[in-house]
């Protein structure tokens, strides 16, 4: 059986085996749960002093954007020009590529 799996990864038998094993493992985890659990309307909602959570989750989402604030702040002299360089305009990126390629070619063919 292992030979079939190893020799031919795309065989249907291998796929069925993986599906059955995955289903078994999933059922094992599922059966560990509390059978008396009842899903109700508000269960699992975030607690905002009893108020209804807004539909737009971004309003209550605490982002991780500033986790690296100290790191980016310390390296701002290096990072700020890089951020400015990322204009989102394709012409700018092509311009940077042409300039870089020209510098590399000069280095490779003339200086060496």
């Amino acid at each position: 059986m292992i030979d079939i799996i190893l020799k031919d990864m795309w065989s249907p038998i291998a796929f069925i085996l993986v599906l059955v094993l995955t289903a078994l493992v999933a059922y094992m985890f599922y059966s560990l749960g509390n059978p008396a659990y009842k899903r109700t309307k508000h269960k699992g909602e975030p607690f905002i002093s009893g108020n209804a959570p807004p539909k737009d989750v971004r309003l209550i989402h605490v982002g991780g954007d500033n986790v690296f604030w100290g790191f980016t702040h310390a390296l701002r002299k290096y990072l700020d020009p890089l951020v400015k360089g990322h204009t989102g305009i394709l012409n700018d990126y092509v311009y940077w590529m042409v300039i870089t390629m020209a510098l590399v070619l000069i280095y490779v063919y003339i200086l060496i």
Partner: protein
Amino acid sequence: MKLTKTFDKALWVFHVNSGSCNACDIEIVAALTPRYDVERFGIKLVGSPRHADVLLFTGPVTRKMKDRVMRVYEQTPDPKVVMVIGNCGSTTGVFYDSYAIDGPIDTLLPDDAHVLYVTGCPVRPENVINGVKEAWLYLEKLRGDDK
């Protein structure tokens, strides 16, 4: 829901004011002060219903608070016990039959909710502590029945 062994340990309590006059709330806080010091029994007031085993409801449940009370009840993980603190919460008290009241709370909660009443206007801190003790005994009895 089946009660776990965790209920033998510390009961964590979340307090909801559903329109109370604050007298019962002050008495609950008094139970936490060094004079009564419920934390020595492991009873702790927590900041979110999602950490709580016991919900303390004060007040007769005003119309504005009804949705919030239901939401907080459902957000509290099972198994849980509701303790209704004070006469207003138990019977709506002096606000009986008011147009602004949707309570008392036991008319709003589902049938399988475990509710205990601590009466008084306001309750005394000793009553609150006694109520938590009764909740403990009730939960133990409940678990014995489940076995």
